[in-house]
């Protein structure tokens, strides 16, 4: 019963995080400054997610295969803007460098 409550509370909390500003600002135009700030949320948070997933002090440290794979993904992503090719390039370089 306690486990069920914990799962439900996290579920409700997650929904609130995702919806609160969408519902609170419905039909209101954000100020130019806010709109400018919101344009930058995507790249800032996605880059932070990458950093968080490749480095945790004492647990996860990126080596040459990881760095090579990410650089390949960055280059191919910028050139093609295609997720499939980006993933193929990043993982291919990662696996190739691991074999060296």
């Amino acid at each position, binding site marked *: 019963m306690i486990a069920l409550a914990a799962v439900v509370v*996290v579920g409700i909390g997650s929904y609130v995080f995702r919806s609160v500003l969408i519902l609170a600002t419905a*039909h209101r135009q954000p100020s130019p400054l806010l709109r400018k700030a919101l344009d*930058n949320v995507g*790249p*800032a948070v996605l*880059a932070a997610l*990458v950093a968080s997933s490749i480095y945790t002090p*004492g647990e996860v440290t990126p080596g040459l295969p990881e760095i090579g794979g990410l650089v390949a*993904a960055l280059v191919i992503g910028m050139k093609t803007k295609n*997720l499939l090719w980006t993933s193929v390039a990043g993982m291919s370089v990662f696996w190739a460098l691991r074999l060296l």
Partner: protein
Amino acid sequence: MHESTTTASSPIRHGLRDGLTLFAPVVPFALVLGLAVIESEIPTGLGWASSSIIFGGAAQLTLLTLYGPGAVIGTVVAALAVNARHLMYSAALAPRFSEQPHWFRILGPYLLVDQVFAVVVGRNEDPAWWRRYYLTAGLVMWTMWQISVAVGLFVGPVIPESWGLSFAIPVMFVGLVAFRLDRMPSLVAAVVGGGVALLSAGLPNKVGIILGGLAGVAVATLVDGDKKGSR
């Protein structure tokens, strides 16, 4: 991929393609989560149900791995902290949702996970197209997530960790960042966001993601303002 010139093409076809492409790198994570469900002190059925009740892999993984007697409140707070970044997604997409019908503003946010945010945030098509695209990509993610976590209950313990399949997740996110680096403020946001997250990587509950996101947005917005003000 994020050009408004695709307005005439089917949002469902685009949503299916992008949803499936986004999901492929998540498969290893879903399999790991399936394994975590088995090993958790939370009952297996409830652990799997958390995939639909929470629908957020990082928060689920936090809850499943930390949950135990005497640690319930701390575990719940930690899992919520992990998902606090979704507030920023909510803020970023609020203008797009303001153009949508009421039912979608209520139901849509449930599907707003990292991958869905990543593909919808840069799209500039008209509201109806955007809504169908969002729902298609979101429902693909949701359905595949439920299936993959269930599969993970059985095959997660069998896949060798040495394959390194989980590296596909940061690769995918790097690609999504790369798509947005055609503006100087976006480049600044990514560099500062990633840098601050790296510097604060030792903090608990993945707080570094939130700090990186806030710092990246703040600095990039200042740079953007200065650039326009100096013209």
